[in-house]
């Protein structure tokens, strides 16, 4: 981006709430069923049916609101958003318009080490539409209403982001939060977490916003960054070319890495919102709010601070280990069972996450469970094995079901703790290597490493390198 322009970005994120049944009916919400097998009379919009609000969806929305320090509306109202589309069986979507359940809140992000507070304008409850299937029907469109009526919480941010990077950081933070709160499974491939981006550019220093374009349905962090960057460049090109950005809805094409116009402001629907007369206002009393507040899990920011103070971790490790609730729980279990909080943090941020990354696995399905990792760390801590040997043991833990103790026993990896035995080997190596001995005595400290290496080789790595070092220096200098 040329330096005289500034981008202004706001995101609308649709999170699918992980309730068992739909927001206004008793049909299941599970993903992937045969088309139209999870759509009851209410979801099909048959004449005579009425919506009944799912309490769990309300609780989840309130949970989110409390977590972002937002005002929870004591009185919120469902409204009908009227438009015709084949996968919208009633001809209107039940949403919230003037009075959403969650009001102003905020979320703090960090980009390149700088913290920034992003405002959240509102979050409202609504039902999802069905899906139109355009393939396989030869000139016809198939309608699958399994998704119709799935509860969504649409989270609308303030136009507070100034780069695609910030937008992605915000989106990731929100993704992490809804999973922490267990209100959304965060599965982006299945559409549980979808993003629309409002993007505009303005000359740096200008107060008013430029004309914005809305980019619809971008379903991965990578695409959000690419789509926004692409859109910023496109708008700058238009303005620098003497043109004007028009207010419109654009679609991001991941294959071509470009956005293209979907509909202009003039073609936009007039949704004719009005309060849904089939549903009563949602009243949230303080007692319910406090009851839900009491069940809130420890949030990422608080957990990070606790990890730093309780376990003595550095900021970076604490951030990594609190990036998901599963990872944090795993870490705490290992730390507790091994009694080695710092060692556990080093192993997790290094070897464990490295191996998971390489294998493309999540911590939830890590082949080495917390118990077995703790067992390994205990043996490092009590000097049964060296750090180097521990890596070998970890590989075996990863590829089998044995415990660290079993592996150490079977493979004979225990360090030699018998000082007499080590002493004999040290003497033998000193006698057999006069040159490095001379060099060391002449002041070349590096020569000592060659001797230690020889000794470790003789002991097949089972001596404690620290002990060996100490003994060697004592002998040579003594």
């Amino acid at each position, binding site marked *: 981006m040329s330096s005289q322009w500034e981008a202004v970005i706001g995101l609308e994120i649709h999170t699918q709430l992980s309730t068992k049944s739909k927001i206004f009916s008793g049909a299941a919400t599970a993903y992937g069923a045969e088309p139209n097998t999870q759509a009851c009379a209410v979801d*099909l*919009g*048959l*004449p*005579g*049916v*009425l*919506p*009944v*609000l799912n309490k769990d969806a309300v609780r989840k929305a309130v949970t989110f609101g409390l977590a972002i320090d937002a005002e929870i509306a004591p009185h919120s109202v469902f409204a*009908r958003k*009227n438009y*015709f589309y*084949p996968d919208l*069986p*009633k*001809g*209107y979507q039940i949403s919230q318009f003037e009075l959403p359940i969650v009001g102003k809140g905020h979320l703090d992000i960090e980009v390149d080490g700088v913290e920034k507070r992003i405002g959240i304008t509102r979050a409202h409850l609504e039902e999802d539409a069905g899906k139109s299937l355009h393939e396989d029907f030869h000139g016809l469109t198939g*309608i699958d209403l399994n998704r119709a009526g799935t509860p969504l919480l649409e989270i609308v941010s303030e136009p507070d982001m100034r780069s695609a990077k910030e937008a992605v950081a915000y989106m990731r933070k929100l993704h992490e939060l809804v999973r922490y709160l267990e209100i959304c499974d965060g599965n982006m491939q299945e559409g549980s977490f979808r993003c629309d981006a409002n993007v505009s550019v303005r000359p740096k220093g200008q107060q008013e916003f430029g004309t914005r374009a809305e980019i619809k349905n971008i379903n991965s962090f990578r695409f959000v960054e690419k789509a926004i960057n692409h859109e910023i460049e496109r708008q700058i090109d238009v303005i620098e070319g003497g043109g004007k950005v028009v207010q419109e809805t654009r679609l991001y094409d991941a294959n071509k890495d470009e956005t293209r116009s979907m509909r202009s402001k003039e073609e936009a629907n*007039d949704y*004719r*919102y*009005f309060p849904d*007369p*089939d*549903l*009563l206002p949602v009243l949230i009393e303080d007692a319910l709010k406090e009851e839900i507040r009491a069940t809130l899990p420890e949030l990422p920011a608080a957990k990070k601070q606790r990890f730093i103070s309780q376990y003595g971790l550095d900021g970076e490790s604490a951030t990594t280990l609190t990036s998901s609730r599963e990872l944090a729980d795993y870490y705490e279990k290992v730390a507790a069972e091994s009694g080695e909080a710092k060692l556990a943090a080093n192993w997790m941020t290094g070897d464990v996450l490295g191996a998971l990354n390489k294998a493309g696995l999540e911590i939830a399905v890590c082949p080495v469970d917390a118990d077995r990792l703790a067992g390994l760390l205990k043996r490092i801590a009590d000097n049964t094995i060296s750090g180097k040997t521990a890596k070998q043991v970890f590989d075996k833990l990863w590829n089998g079901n044995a415990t660290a103790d079993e592996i150490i026993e079977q493979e004979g990896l225990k360090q030699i703790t018998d000082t007499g035995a080590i002493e004999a080997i040290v003497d033998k190596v000193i006698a057999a290597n006069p040159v490095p001995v001379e060099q060391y005595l002449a002041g070349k400290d590096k020569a000592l490493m060659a001797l230690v290496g020889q000794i470790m080789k003789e002991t097949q790595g089972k001596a404690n390198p620290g002990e060996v070092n100490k003994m060697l220096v004592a002998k040579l200098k003594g």
Partner: protein
Amino acid sequence: MPGGSSGGSAVAVAARLAPAVTGTDTGGSIRQPAALCGITGLKPTYGRVSRYGMIAYASSLDQGGPMARSAEDAALLMQVMAGFDTKDSTSVDQPVPDYSASLNDDLTGLKIGLPKQFFSSELDSQMAAAIQSAVSEYQKLGATIHEVDMPNLELAIPAYYVIASAECSSNLSRYDGVRFGYRCQNPADLTDLYTRSRGEAFGAEVKRRILTGTYALSAGYYDAYYLKAQQVRRLISDDFKRALSEVDVLMGPVTPNPAFKIGEKTSDPVQMYLEDIYTIAINLAGLPALSISAGFIAGLPVGLQVIGNYFSEAKLLNIGHRYQQVTDWHLKVPKGFE
């Protein structure tokens, strides 16, 4: 004309084909046909009877209720219709009284209010006389009569037609030819499917209401029409609240005239809408009201309307039953039904 929209049901009772029937009343659809056919019809308090299964017209006004030959029979059907339903969020969780048990309660001391706006010049003089005569019967039963003022009543028709049409325009959106109901032949594309299916299948009056409602909800008009109508609705409710704090029930006609001939009024929709002047305000307020036969003009029945406070259905049926014990209008049928 038997009236409507539950006219078919009313005729079935008037013709003695069925002892009791259900109807739905959005602006008078139980009470008006009951009045024109000489039977008893009860529009319950909004929320007293579940709307689940009823085809929605105007959801905030629709209410199901019984129609029968007498208040006594209506009480029996009401007994099984009333009650809370978890499938209808607007139904009210409140105990259902035994409607038959209080039918014979004494009416001594009953305070009857007559809204002066109900007896204006628009009311046919013979109708007015019939209603007055019914009121006199209640005086004989121990009731006292009081005039009440309901200044906002005249706003009921415009407010009703905005709200009902707005809700109707949205409620009827599902009849789009995609999943059920009428679908036009060989649609060229989606827009064609929508426009022809709906254009061919809806009647003129339904189209008029969809257009009115769509207009009232459109950007730039919402505040002036829909929002204003909701404010008027509150004023009308307040009028009723005030009146019903002074008296026990209100009485008046159900319709301005006895039944008219087929086709007589359809050429002028506004004139036709004015026929509902005495019934629709009750729907806007969500109150219960009973329609009972109170005389005949040239062989055509006259309906007396009794309006009570919220959840006073038992009282209304009691008031209707006591009248039917001392008169026999409910046993007579209109010309042509003998």
